[in-house]
């Protein structure tokens, strides 16, 4: 994938004069521009792509951010916001002649309100730190992306991050009630409300997942939930992945909404077991991990029903956590699946499609076919509850052409997800990574509407340029809008 280069820095402010201007706003050491200092910011979690940052600002106060935005606005310097840099789609990838705005110093939990069950925090606070601070009140913050010990809540808002508990507890957008943002012109505005809603349009929802394209989030009020009294996890092994899929549908049909419902295929099971030694059945074609939470009576009743359903679907090796320690152990394998798979090959590429659950067998079959065709192994980790599939393609970046082949393979997986009624990204965002697949997911008219929405918030187009939404020109140039089996993704729409 070639990194998109559009018109930037139209005014031509020199590096020296930007550094000078920022020096008037920020203390010494809070402006980085030497190659040595800027290197750690070359990439985010999509580390195959690196761009040397031009200038980096590390403000500490909202007023400083406002002043920085005014300078950049006046001189037409584009701004890219960055939290912990754990994003997987290159949303925080620097660009030449752009200011990289790090929110890393905004680490304060401003208030935990145990009565209203909210926490008001700065954007650089980690996801995990919120739950840690709320714990003494018996509360926690529900969305739990796997990077939660490192990723920041500001980044979670920008990407609308998920986690393994989304089916029952929702994504970031469902758990945030208010944000304060600095717009490109330096003005401050609060979106959402102090209760469950705000006046006017739901701009709060629009900002979630907007990937730093509309404004810079500088303060966030999240909702906290009471920690469930009890939680148990049930592990079930299947000889046939389709049976595992049917068991998932049967659990939902029985009216049970598990707190977490995860599936792993054989390669992922083997890797995880080898890594974490938790006692996963390594012969199984698939395992399901089903977590139930609530009060003890409720969990006991539901676990019985889930066990019966698993049995009815030919599950073997059913194991139920007896202690909290065992519950965490059973999750340990799943939570270390990515690094575990990472040990199987020099590199892996994590995909993030979402599909209607019933399409799982078809999608896995397709992935298998493609895996053979591209000669690249794939391990599959699936948030079975909400349909979010993470195929991990194993490759070796040092072998010439292998990254390119991997990306081509990944692109076909995502396009197939769209074809079966799903989406190219469930929780990792578009960034630069999936920008070409956006041309498959959306038609010209939708993309055009996205651009007009962007312009309503950022009329000069200086916020995170070239990410998340492709230009129509780019889609046309790439010749995307692929025809699958003679069918366009949206046959009702005109194509150019």
């Amino acid at each position: 994938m070639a990194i998109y280069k559009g018109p930037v820095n139209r005014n031509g402010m020199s590096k020296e004069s930007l550094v000078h201007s920022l020096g008037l706003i920020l203390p010494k050491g809070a402006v980085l521009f030497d190659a040595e200092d800027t290197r750690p910011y070359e990439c985010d979690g999509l580390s195959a792509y690196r761009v040397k940052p031009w200038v980096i600002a590390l403000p500490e106060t909202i007023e400083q951010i406002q002043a920085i935005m005014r300078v950049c606005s006046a001189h037409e310097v584009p701004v890219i916001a960055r939290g912990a840099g754990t994003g997987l789609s290159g949303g925080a990838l620097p660009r030449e002649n752009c200011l990289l705005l790090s929110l890393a110093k905004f680490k304060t939990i401003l208030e935990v309100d145990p009565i209203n069950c909210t926490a008001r925090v700065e954007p650089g606070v980690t996801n995990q730190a919120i739950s840690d601070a709320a714990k003494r009140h018996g509360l926690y913050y529900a969305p739990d992306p796997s990077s939660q010990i490192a990723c920041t809540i500001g980044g979670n808002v920008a990407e609308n991050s998920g986690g393994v508990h989304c089916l029952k507890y929702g994504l970031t957008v469902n758990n945030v009630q208010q944000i304060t943002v600095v717009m490109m012109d330096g003005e401050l505005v609060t979106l959402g409300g102090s209760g469950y809603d705000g006046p006017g349009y739901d701009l709060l929802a629009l900002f979630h997942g907007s990937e730093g394209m509309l404004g810079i989030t500088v303060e966030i009020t999240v909702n906290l939930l009471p920690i469930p009294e009890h939680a148990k996890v049930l592990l079930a092994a299947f000889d046939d992945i389709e049976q595992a899929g049917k068991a998932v549908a049967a659990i939902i049909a029985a009216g049970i909404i598990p707190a977490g419902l995860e599936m792993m295929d054989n390669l992922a099971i083997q890797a995880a077991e080898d890594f974490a030694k938790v006692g996963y059945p390594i012969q199984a074609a698939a395992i399901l991990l089903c977590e139930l939470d609530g009060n003890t009576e409720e969990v006991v009743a539901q676990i019985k029903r889930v066990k019966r359903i698993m049995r009815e679907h030919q599950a073997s090796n059913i194991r139920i956590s007896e202690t909290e320690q065992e519950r965490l152990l059973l999750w340990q394998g799943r939570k270390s699946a990515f690094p575990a798979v990472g040990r199987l090959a020099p590199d892996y590429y994590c995909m993030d499609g979402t599909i209607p659950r019933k399409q799982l067998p078809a999608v896995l079959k397709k992935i298998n076919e493609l895996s053979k065709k591209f000669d690249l192994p794939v391990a599959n980790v699936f948030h079975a509850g909400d349909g979010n599939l993470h195929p991990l393609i194993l490759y070796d970046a040092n072998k010439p052409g292998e990254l390119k082949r991997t990306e081509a393979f990944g692109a076909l997986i995502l396009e197939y997800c769209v074809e079966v009624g799903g989406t190219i990204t469930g929780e990792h965002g578009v960034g630069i990574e999936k920008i070409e697949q956006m041309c498959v997911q959306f038609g010209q008219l939708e993309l055009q509407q996205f651009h007009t929405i962007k312009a309503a918030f950022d009329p000069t187009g200086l916020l995170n340029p070239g990410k998340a939404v492709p230009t129509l020109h780019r889609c046309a140039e790439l010749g995307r809008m692929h025809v699958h089996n003679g069918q366009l993704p949206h046959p009702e729409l005109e194509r150019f």
Partner: protein
Amino acid sequence: MSDQSLALQQQVKNNIEHGQAMQITAGGSKIFYAQEIVGEALSVKDHSGIIDYEPTELVITARCGTRLQDLEATLAEQNQMLAFEPPSYSKHATLGGCIATGLSGPRRPFAGAVRDATLGVRIINAKAEILKFGGKVMKNVAGYDVSRLMVGSMGTLGIILDTSLKVLPRPETEITTCYELTERASISRVNKICAQAYPVSATCFDGSQLFIRLSGTESGVNKALSMLGGETVKDADVFWESIKNQQHSFFESKKRIWRLSLKPATPPLEIIGEQLIEWRGAQRWLASDQNPDIIRDIVSKHGGHATIFKNAEKDDLVFHPISGKLYELHMNLKLAMDPKSLFNPYRMYEGF
């Protein structure tokens, strides 16, 4: 029960060509909830019917003219429900109106609002183009979240053709308990309970009693009930229906009926009038003749906002005023979606 997308698109096209403002209508059950009704009526009521429903996917897709009662009956057959409990002020209430007004019922604090359940929409925009955003899956971060933006935008940003919604299983058991309390004690009690892991699914204080509904498995609900005590309410379903659909005697008042949105534990407000308090204190219905500016001032001081939900008088501002940069962003967005202001003009605010 048919797809009228193309016919509606043609009507919108004609109206745009003639610069004709449109008043989007369906069941007409929420017509009272508006700043001003302007333009030629454009009925979307015949664009109705369920397009797709697969219970095990927990998603239903239906056209905007589908009546809420039909949608809910279809879900009930599979023992499922719209978890946000949309209010139906008449049997004509439609899905389109539900999305456009963005109103949620008693379960909202515990199961999410309409916007939380909204997964995808198909709309007609101000160029008479049919656009599709979001989809039928729960996790989807491709492109801006236009689907949720449409929720509560009162039809001012476009015509909602179809919507995909997340649905949930109906709880196995529901029991309501109640306590005699003062307003202050009720707000304090309800927030204490909600900060603990009880399976609460609705709360309401009617002026003298605090009602708490518990939902879940039979054993789980009974356990919680034994810990919470109170007096078990008979025919509780009827009570919650009357709150959700505003058939409760409180809503018969001829005074302005306000909807106040506040932090749940906000102490009792110094406002003259009667109140009915839902959502653990975060949604307070107020029947009052007090000066609207004074009411808004008090609510704003507590960080909340106030809407004149019903019985607004001429010259009243129905929706809580917004100003400064927030107003500018609203105007920009309205211009981006509907540059000639032809969709439900002035229904929310001056200018849109």
